């Protein structure tokens, strides 16, 4: 069964094409990695998949739902960890979880049970009453993942979740994600700049550059395809070694899909 279906997906910001005619599927229960240089179109793709951006053209389906037609239904299906922080730093860890559960209309008892379970799982239960602002970067990231999982989503989007974390925290975080994938059969769609992480965690990897998918397959397939010994070398062969400037598109705020739709009317 396919959790995500993407066909000929394109997103333009004025004259700039951030995502250019990409097609891929993500199977239910799969860990799928999207890797690419800065500004390649990873975050824009996630925003279209998560009903935050209206595609310019093409087709997207998440768990059989069209994000353009049923944005709120799609939003209930996934949890998301953004590239940038999104916690309320003036609330406690527990209160952040509580608020998220309320946003997703979880029954109170279930909300309490899941919060306890997830905060324990991510080793944050003992810090549940601490304000987020006093937590370390790694704890905040773990809390964001725990929060994204609270409403038991079928799909988890992780947009560069390990950015700025130390190796120990990164290792622990991916172990948790892999465990969740195996025990709860949760589909994971992730982006990362760390090739070793993508190789270790993901079953299939798509390499995106200049808005287009340049290769897709398992880490081994990508190495064989490029005749290289590591995923990082394969990545450099496929995308080149030149340092990329961040395109302006990263500073373009996403438009809520409801707004995009109302603008189109």
């Amino acid at each position, binding site marked *: 069964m396919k959790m995500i279906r993407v066909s000929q997906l394109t997103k333009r910001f004025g004259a700039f094409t951030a995502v250019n005619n990409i097609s891929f599927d993500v199977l239910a229960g799969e860990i799928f990695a999207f890797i690419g240089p800065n500004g390649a179109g990873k975050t824009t793709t996630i925003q279209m998949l*998560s009903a*935050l951006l209206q595609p310019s053209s093409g087709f997207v389906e998440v768990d059989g739902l069209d994000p353009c037609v049923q*944005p*709120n*239904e799609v*939003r*209930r299906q996934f949890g*998301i960890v*953004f590239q*940038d*922080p*999104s*916690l*309320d*730093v*003036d*609330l406690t860890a527990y*209160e952040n979880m*509580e*608020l*998220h559960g*309320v*946003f*997703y*209309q979880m029954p109170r008892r279930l909300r309490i049970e899941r919060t306890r379970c997830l905060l324990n799982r991510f080793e944050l239960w003992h810090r549940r009453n601490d*304000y987020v602002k006093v937590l370390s970067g790694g704890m905040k990231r773990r809390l964001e993942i725990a929060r994204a999982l609270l409403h038991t989503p079928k799909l988890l989007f992780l947009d560069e979740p390990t950015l700025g974390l130390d190796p120990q925290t990164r290792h622990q975080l991916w172990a948790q994600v892999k465990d969740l994938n195996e025990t709860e059969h949760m589909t994971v769609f992730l982006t990362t700049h760390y090739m070793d992480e993508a190789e270790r965690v993901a079953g299939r990897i798509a390499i995106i550059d200049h808005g287009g998918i340049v290769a897709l397959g398992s880490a081994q397939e990508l190495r064989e395809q490029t005749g290289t010994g590591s995923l990082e070398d394969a990545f450099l062969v496929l995308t080149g070694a030149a340092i990329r400037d961040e395109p302006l598109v990263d500073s373009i*705020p*996403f*438009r*809520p899909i*409801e*707004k995009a739709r*109302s603008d189109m009317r």
Partner: protein
Amino acid sequence: MSVIYYLWLRELRRFARSRSQIAGALGQPILYLVTMGFGLGPVFLRAGQGSYLQFIVPGLIAMTLLFNSVISGMNLLWDRQVGFLKETLVAPVPRAQILIGRILGGASVALFQGVLVAILCLAVGFRIKNLSSISLALLVMALIAFVFSILGIALGSILRDVRGFQGIINFLIMPIFFLSGALFPLEGLPSALATATHVDPLAYGVDALRSTLNGQSYFNARLDVAVLGLLAILLFVGTLYLFEKVEV
């Protein structure tokens, strides 16, 4: 409903945990009370206008409500800055519920601070003319807080950073305060100034408070409440439109 309740609760929690915000809320009214209330009191008395303290206190309460409810807009911008706005806008929740929760939270915090200032003023000699009108005064205070909390969020929906909000305070909120009649009587003003006071929504709030607390009214208490009520409805509709378009 629970989304509205929890967003309201969130604002209260954040306020209760911010000692500087509580102290700051009281600091400005105390400054005005001491410098203007006691400083200009003798002049006001000699001009045959009675007790300046009695006159200025409704204005100081309105000032507290104005500045602390408009902060709702700043809080929206802060949420954008720290990233939390994303969490609310990505949730499968109607924007109207998020907006109402934020408005009620901001207005409640401002109302609480307004009540604190009122108690402080009572402690330094202000007297309520008719104790039975206290509940009416609280309703007027709530209405003022509600109107300016909506205005704050409307501004926060348009602006993109906290620094821009400071300009709004200087060029919109300060004139609203100074033209409201909070510090001086509205009778006998030059025509241009009189016209400006008539289009100042806070002027109706100050007048309604003065009417309920002191028994004095320049416009008419019913008119005051009607203007504030109508403004609240119009502002809410406009703000909902703006909030629907908020981008992260």
